[in-house]
């Protein structure tokens, strides 16, 4: 059978996974951590500790600030030094809790042993509550609170759970290493998610450039199936390598051959997608009572002498990680948080890691040079590359004409900002920059309209 992939668009960047042989090593705990209170999509968390409080590893330090929000836990033990604004990696102020580290004392009740717990609790509500209390958010990039995603709106039915092990961004290897080193935990995590969603079948999607991971997970599933029937229905699907396969809607298309409509949610076609790292976090939260206090981060780049996959406590300053590995190399001109396609350039190395930080990537001036933009020759490569079926060249023109109505009609709000258009444009037109702004403006318009409609409906009620 031909290997599956998503049906439209996509590009084939060189995967450059040069850190794939590096085992995940724990990074020593830094002397001070800075834990941001906006580590997820949605409302920032509200601090529940005060300056001077003693905290332990895994102790909640902030509670959700709204429905779409998450708990945040202390990743170290020590004393809260300050709670206030601190610059994040883009230089914008975020509320941050600063904790001076003293020892490494864990909160009672957290199982820190390595033993694999394969008994899966029956009660879905209890599982969801544990996920919520564990501050689990989607670690595939969007950091959407997981418990919200696992509570589908009434009337919708989940038919398949997809575990996203694509890691289609070049350079990143933390999910790959997690699959290899913690495959058992990931599969148990997947089984727990499956349980919450009502025992639906589960597919772990892995791209074909990670054959070791595919083989290992297949073995793990076979072993676990002997232990309990709870693991029936979990399977691995090897996918053709193509960027952005790890995009939620692309992965659903690849695995289920179903397309999520414009503005729709994955649940509208019966799918729930969770990342490999999220499955591991779910395992930790449910089976070990361990909230998200650390995550694995790939530190890589051709110009970086020491490739590494590190297990880093949340809130570790980026400069601490880099110094541990020997400092910023001379030839690096840009440091990116995340992969080269969707990652963000770091403007401030004093910033600290977040739950969703996946990589630190060092690129040279040559690698990041932007060619001079010239006129659009209407070759249509961007439209060919767009995995959402949009026409980037048209959106660019409409944005320049400030035509928000036409932008909305052409579904600019569906853009997933994967960067395929910019990657494929032979004229070096900054398509993504323009579309991102157009999307922001259109979303603002849509939200304003929704708010106005709501207000009107309420007024009509009265």
């Amino acid at each position, binding site marked *: 059978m031909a290997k599956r992939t998503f049906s439209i668009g996509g590009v084939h960047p060189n995967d450059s996974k040069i850190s794939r042989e590096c085992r995940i090593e724990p990074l020593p705990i830094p002397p001070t951590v800075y834990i941001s209170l906006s580590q997820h999509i949605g409302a920032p968390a509200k601090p529940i500790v005060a300056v001077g409080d003693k905290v332990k590893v895994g102790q909640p330090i902030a509670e959700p600030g709204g429905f779409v929000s998450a708990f945040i836990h202390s990743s170290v033990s020590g004393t809260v030094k300050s709670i206030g604004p601190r*610059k994040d990696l*883009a*230089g*914008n*102020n975020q509320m941050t809790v600063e904790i001076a580290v003293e020892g490494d004392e864990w909160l009672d009740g957290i199982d820190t042993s390595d033993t694999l717990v394969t008994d899966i609790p029956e009660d879905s509500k209890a599982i969801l509550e544990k996920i919520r209390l564990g501050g689990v958010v989607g670690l595939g990039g969007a950091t959407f609170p997981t418990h919200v995603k696992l509570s589908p709106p009434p009337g919708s039915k989940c038919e398949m759970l997809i575990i996203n092990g694509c890691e289609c961004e070049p350079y990143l290897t933390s999910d790959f290493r997690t699959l290899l080193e913690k495959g058992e935990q990931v599969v148990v995590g997947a089984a727990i998610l499956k349980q919450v969603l009502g025992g639906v079948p589960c597919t772990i999607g892995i791209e074909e450039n990670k054959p070791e991971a595919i083989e290992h997970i297949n073995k793990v599933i076979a072993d676990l199936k002997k232990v309990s029937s709870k693991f029936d229905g979990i399977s691995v699907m090897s996918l053709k390598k193509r960027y952005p396969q790890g995009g939620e809607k692309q992965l659903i298309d690849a695995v289920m051959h179903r397309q999520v409509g414009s503005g729709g949610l994955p649940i509208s076609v019966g799918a729930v997608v969770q990342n490999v790292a999220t499955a591991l976090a779910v395992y930790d939260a449910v089976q070990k009572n361990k909230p998200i206090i650390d995550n694995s981060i790939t530190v890589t780049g051709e110009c970086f002498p020491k490739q590494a996959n590190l297990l880093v406590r949340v809130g570790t300053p980026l400069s601490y990680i880099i110094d541990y590995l020997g400092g910023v190399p001379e030839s690096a001109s*840009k440091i990116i948080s995340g992969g080269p396609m969707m990652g*963000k*350039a770091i*403007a*401030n190395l004093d910033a600290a890691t977040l739950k969703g930080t996946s990589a630190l990537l060092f690129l040279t001036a040559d690698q*990041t040079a*932007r060619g001079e*933009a010239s006129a659009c020759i209407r070759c249509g490569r961007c439209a060919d590359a767009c995995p959402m079926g949009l026409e980037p060249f048209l959106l660019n023109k409409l944005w320049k004409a400030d035509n928000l109505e036409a932008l909305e009609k052409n579904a600019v709000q569906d853009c997933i900002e994967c960067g395929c258009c910019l990657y494929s444009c032979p004229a070096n037109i*900054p398509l993504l*920059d*323009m579309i*991102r*702004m157009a999307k*922001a403006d259109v979303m603002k318009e849509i939200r304003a309209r929704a708010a106005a409609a709501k207000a009107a409906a309420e007024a009509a009620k009265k």
Partner: protein
Amino acid sequence: MSQTIIWTIAIITVLGLVLALVLYLVAEKFKVVEDPRIDEVEKVMPGANCGGCGFAGCRAFAEAAVKAPNLDNNYCPVGGNEVMSKVASILGYEVKEKAPMVAVVRCNGTCEARPKINDYEGYPSCKVKASLYSGDTGCSFGCLGCGDCVAACKFGALSMDPVTGLPVVDEEKCTACGACTKACPKSLIELRLKGPRGMRMYVSCRNQDKGPAAKKACASACIGCGICAKTCTHDAIVVENNIAYIDSSKCKLCRECEAMCPTGAIHSVNFPKPLDKDAVKARIQERQKRAREKAAAEAAAAKAAAEAAAVKPVENNVKEEK
């Protein structure tokens, strides 16, 4: 043969007349009555179609002005009082004279005062840059320097100064249409009163960080210390969110705040003489000293009076005890 020609001419003529009649009737029936004053108003407008008035163009302004019951909400900043008085005379309204305004850039983070901490290599547009991150200097409120305001100005009144890296407003050309204020993603440009003979004062900073952070990012930032607000005798300065703001309608242009500002964030323009900071400072300090002494004397007097008042009841008590 000749008959055919005659018939043809006759039929065409009759047809023409009938159709002309139909056209006339239709035109009469669906006639759009337009106020002739709209055209008249449009004629006196500057015709820049800049949108500074809040309407799509001069024609849209003229339509709105004719419809409105007065001219309170409709004002053409480009034409100013001259055009508005013409509009008023056409429409028979009264026009309230407005003091002329001018665009003012409220950032003085020059390359020297506000060193770069990283290089921006993205698309050269302030709006794009602002959507990506806080900027290439330590100040996340200051000018991004890509010149969106310059591109937005239809009158050529803005230009980037290559030395300071900041936009400069040409007062002669600026019409206060407000296009630049909307183009700046950091909202740094403000329309302020032009002031008598062009003299005006303003705080050239929008940094809302606390003092030490602001100072670290930019040597000429407003640190929100509040000295200016304490110095001002006209109640024209408020400090909110660590940033001072001078209300140009209250400011009496005494320049005392400028002399006292520790970072030089308060700017004055078009004053005939340079400010003698030390003299003004000495004068203010002398005044403040006197005020303090007076206050101390008053407090002492009040205290003495209070004591005197307090002594009596004690005497009474003593008496009662006896």
